[in-house]
């Protein structure tokens, strides 16, 4: 197995462990835990979908390749809601905006599985563990626009909170903001932008770039010595 695929597996497993860890801390009354647990779960799904899409020699690879898109919508959606509630909410999202965000998410989650709509053609190179998808360009751009709007809203939310927060919150937001920006930049570039031009060689870089935010949260949770 190539080092790239091992990295995908490692990133997926670490994200899954983090998802379980944060979930076990309670999600019913804690929206921060709820959305971070979801975020890391979708990171795990994303890493595994790319892994299986690359390594599976059977026709099943296409299912996994398609799954990367619903997973990435899950990631950006959970990240956006996480940024709304972490470490505290400063604004309520209007109901109508919530519905629009969720309806569009459902739309972009479904379309990869409708034949010849979002993905119009594909090639698989089993020996090189590589695949290429060909998109309906308008829908792919729409997907990208939706994705980037949520990304910018996330970063905007966190920067705004950094400005008004103090003490422990300020540090936490700063650390997470840096980790999230790095993850989003790598993920967006290697798994969204260059794929538009048919370059799928570097999709494996996206999931490992999410590890930094896992490490930051892991540090926040475990670095204190108090009982």
């Amino acid at each position, binding site marked *: 197995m190539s080092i790239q695929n091992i990295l995908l597996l490692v990133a997926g497993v670490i994200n899954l462990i983090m998802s379980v860890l944060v979930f076990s801390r309670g999600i019913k009354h*804690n929206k921060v835990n709820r959305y971070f647990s979801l975020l890391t779960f979708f990171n795990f799904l994303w890493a595994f979908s790319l892994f299986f899409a690359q390594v599976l020699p059977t026709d099943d690879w296409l299912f996994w390749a398609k799954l990367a898109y619903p997973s990435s919508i899950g990631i950006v959606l959970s990240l956006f809601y996480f940024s709304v509630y972490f470490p505290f909410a400063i604004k309520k999202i209007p109901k109508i905006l919530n519905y629009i965000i969720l309806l569009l998410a459902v739309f972009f989650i479904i379309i990869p599985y409708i034949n010849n709509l979002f993905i119009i053609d594909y090639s698989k190179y089993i020996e090189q563990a590589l695949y290429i998808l060909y998109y309906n360009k308008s829908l792919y751009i729409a997907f990208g626009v939706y994705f980037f709007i949520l990304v910018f809203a996330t970063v905007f939310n966190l920067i705004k909170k950094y400005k008004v927060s103090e003490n*422990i919150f300020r540090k936490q937001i700063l650390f997470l903001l840096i980790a999230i920006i790095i993850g989003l930049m790598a993920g967006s570039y290697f798994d969204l932008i260059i794929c538009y031009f048919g370059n799928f060689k570097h999709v494996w870089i996206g999931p490992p770039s999410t590890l930094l935010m896992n490490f930051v949260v892991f540090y926040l949770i475990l670095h204190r010595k108090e009982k």
Partner: protein
Amino acid sequence: MAKANKKIFIILAGGTCILNEQGHILAVQSAEDIKDWLNQMPELNILADIEPIFVSSEDELVGPSVWQKIVAIISEKNAEAAGFVVVSKIDQLINTSLALSFALQNFKKTIVCTASQVSGASFIDKKEVVNNLKNKYGGLSLRANLINAIQIAQQPLPAPAIIFGTRLIPAYKVIADLASDTNLFSSIDNEYWGKVDFGINVKSDLKYNKQTTKINTNLLADVLVINDIPSVPWFFDKKVLSKYKGVFIRVSPYQSLEKSKQDQIAKWKLPTVLYNYHLTSPVKGAVSISNCTKNTAIIKMMWALSQASKNKNFENLMTQNIIGEFLN
């Protein structure tokens, strides 16, 4: 239908200093200041349905009369509240939370106390401290503390507690932490009810008392506090002593109180408590207690003396574990 926010009362008794957008200090000196003060923290209204109540200003002394007012407000608003956040001066925060613990025993609603790192009405002398906090932490900590306190007030807690920085500590375990400038308080046994790390995490295994609530609305008694130094004699005017209902003496753990001092205690004929965290040697006419924090012992004494009219034995009250204050 959207779920309605829980009702949280924020009781303001000093310790309200925050920095506004221009970096100027803003504090609640009267009920009229509350609106402007709250406008600086719009996020509080998202966390809960908050109702602020003014009790005392920054320059008022926080003591028994202020505590009595707070107890009266909490008793009155009990039915409509999901929880209470008490903001008070940092230097009296431990005593305030303890006074509430003794006055509102087995209270079923959560009471969380917090403060700004800076209090008082004059800030010229605190300019350096304020600037340092502003540069290092972006504020005076109250905004972050209030955000945490309001969230904690919506969850059940067994007794009044302090949230400051990242630590949630039951009132009877709180001691000042001089080593940290984020967490100004710590727990005497390093055990916490909760912490703020990645969100707020309140322990799930806290023990809750099912006994009926006892509310004491009496004014806590004034007590003279002496920090005894062996071989340094005490000199007290009778007039001074007559102002107090009792005498609290912090003694050395490993040597008995000198004979001359024991005679003085006998002569005063005032209820007297000898305290040391580790151990205290018995002295005739005085109650010896240990294994609780010094602040807990003092406030407990003030509370026990205020119960005197109810014909309760002072010594019994002092040696009983009333709020879980004896740690061993």
